[in-house]
């Protein structure tokens, strides 16, 4: 499925926001403390709102009559373009926060790049989302530092989370043919140009959190799994099943 770089760009951005929004929403009512429960629900709301903006654009660009809901609830795993990082299960709260931080640290610079897009609709959405992403990054950085540089238990959990999640970062900073097409069309930044800001943020926050960055993030790139090409990890199917079952079981249901 390649309906042109603008469609692919909108799907990639929308699916990242949608899937991470779905993941963090699962904490609603279950987070370790009330304030975090509220924060997670609010971050999830922002992301799902952003997903709606991007997927609406994708539907318009595609011109096949699919709206944001049709794209969110009626596509199969192979047609989702989110990066693998965001679909990883919540794990413990440390892993959820680390996943959020790694995504936010990448999300903000790519949105800042997209604000300069030659396509006005992309620049408008990115301008809106960048403000929210900046606030998310501020919060997730703060928590990663406090828990990393915290007790022996919290530090061990944050280090384990970083070790587990860091390999998934490779896909976010290595451009594929579609990323190149997006940049060549003037729709978005080259991934190489935003990687510096991402790496600097991750290095600075890890250092302040007394966490050690794993050394070889590139190894998963060679593997068969790449979310943005539609090759997802096993857990993704279960996520989709939960997210989509109602629209699948009762097509067109509304309330």
């Amino acid at each position: 499925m390649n309906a042109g770089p603008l469609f692919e760009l909108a799907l990639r951005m929308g699916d990242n926001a949608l899937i991470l929004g779905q993941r963090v929403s699962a904490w609603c009512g279950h987070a370790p403390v009330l304030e975090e429960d509220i924060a997670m629900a609010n971050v999830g709301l922002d992301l799902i709102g952003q997903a709606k903006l991007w997927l609406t654009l994708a539907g318009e660009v595609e011109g096949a009559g699919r709206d944001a809901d049709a794209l969110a609830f009626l596509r199969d795993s192979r047609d989702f373009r989110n990066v693998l990082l965001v679909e990883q299960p919540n794990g413990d709260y440390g892993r959820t926060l680390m996943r959020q931080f790694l995504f936010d640290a990448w999300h903000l610079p790519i949105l800042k790049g997209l604000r300069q897009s030659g396509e006005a609709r992309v620049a408008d959405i990115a301008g809106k989302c960048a403000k929210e992403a900046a606030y998310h990054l501020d919060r997730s950085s703060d928590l990663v530092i406090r828990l990393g540089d915290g007790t022996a238990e919290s530090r061990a959990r944050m280090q384990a989370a970083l070790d587990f999640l860091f390999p998934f970062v490779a896909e976010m900073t290595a451009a594929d043919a579609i990323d190149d097409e997006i940049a060549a069309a003037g729709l978005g930044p080259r991934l190489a140009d935003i990687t510096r800001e991402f790496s600097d943020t991750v290095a600075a926050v890890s250092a302040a959190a007394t966490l050690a960055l794993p050394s070889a993030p590139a190894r998963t790139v060679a593997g068969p799994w790449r979310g943005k090409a539609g090759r997802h990890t096993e857990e993704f199917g279960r996520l989709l099943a939960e997210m989509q079952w109602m629209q699948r079981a009762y097509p067109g249901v509304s309330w």
Partner: protein
Amino acid sequence: MDAAGLSGRVMVRALEARPEAAEIWRWLDDVPDPEIPVLSVNDLGIIRAVEAAGDEVVVTVTPTYSGCPATAAIALSIEEALRRRGLTRVRVKSQISPAWTTDWISPAGREKLRAYGIAPPEGAACAGAALRNAPKTCPRCGSAHVEEVSRFGSTPCKASWRCGDCLEPFDYFKRF
């Protein structure tokens, strides 16, 4: 209404037999935010334009946060309010650029927030991260001895704070 609150708004002359745009703006003073009812949609700075297009009135609204659940409720209450005033064809249009900022909350709106127990946003959003995003004083007792509890609160636009003197928790309408 201050100059900043008016910036970016477009007022279009209404056709004959239809109320002036300025009058519709005044009617919108009576449309409350569903989550923070002391604020009107005008106080919040989310109305970007009131225009006559053919035989319908188009109200352009900018969402505060992308996922704010109040957005749909606000559009509905604007439509209802204008219909009650006798306008039959009303359309509420969403516009995301330029992105909404708390800089557009009116000075009167800020005072209403404080009186309601919510600390208003401190500083201009355009000043960026150089300034700490924190309330200056407790909206209940006025003490400057305040501390953050959580970056988020009961709605996307608020954070949770606590006063070290009167010991009350309170919401801060965060600068955005």
